């Protein structure tokens, strides 16, 4: 039982670092650096690095949520957290769920068009790139309270 809980929590944290690490790479490094990269070098980012990073990003998000929900269920507080009877972990769970929804259903579909991974009207690409950027920023904003909520379970703030 203890080993199982340890393993689930360990995988939850590993997946979370993968997810939020790449989210912050996009927002703190890649997006601000793009205007400084010469046009002839931009395909290295758009065609090679970004698609690879997006793969680990979206599956990191999936497994963070999967192991997080499994951990809450095995510890017996899943319903209490989701109904905010236990608001410290509950807010973090809801923020994580919203962020994961953004990754899979808004950012990834928009990036597939923006990066040319799927066929689409060329005129659509700038709008999709902007949508992906704004929702990625939204997730960066939400990651700050989400992480505070997760940590507050072990170390209450107030």
């Amino acid at each position, binding site marked *: 039982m203890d080993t199982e809980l340890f393993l689930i929590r360990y995988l939850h944290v590993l997946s979370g670092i993968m997810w939020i690490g790449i989210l912050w790479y996009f927002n703190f490094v890649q997006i601000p650096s793009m205007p400084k990269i010469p046009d002839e070098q931009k395909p290295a980012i758009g065609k090679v690095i970004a698609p690879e990073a997006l793969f680990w990003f979206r599956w990191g998000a999936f497994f963070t949520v999967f192991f997080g929900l499994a951990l809450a269920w095995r510890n017996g507080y899943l319903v209490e957290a989701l109904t905010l009877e236990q*608001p410290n972990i509950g807010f973090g769970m809801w923020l994580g769920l919203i962020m994961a929804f953004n990754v899979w259903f808004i950012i990834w579909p928009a990036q597939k068009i923006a990066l040319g991974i799927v066929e689409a009207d060329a005129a659509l690409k700038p709008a999709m790139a902007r949508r992906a950027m704004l929702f990625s920023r939204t997730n*960066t904003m939400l990651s700050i*309270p989400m992480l505070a909520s997760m940590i507050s379970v072990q170390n209450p703030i*107030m």
Partner: protein
Amino acid sequence: MGKILESLPLTIVAGVVLTVIMIFVTDAIYDSQMSAPEAAISDVMNNM
């Protein structure tokens, strides 16, 4: 909202503001869940 999200520093500030709001809302929810005797004990503890 779009203007805030276009700026990375403003995005971080917005995240910190949301965190502070979340902390106070969390505290308010815990307070509302306390029974009267628990609330009285909590008040005494806070005033010690």
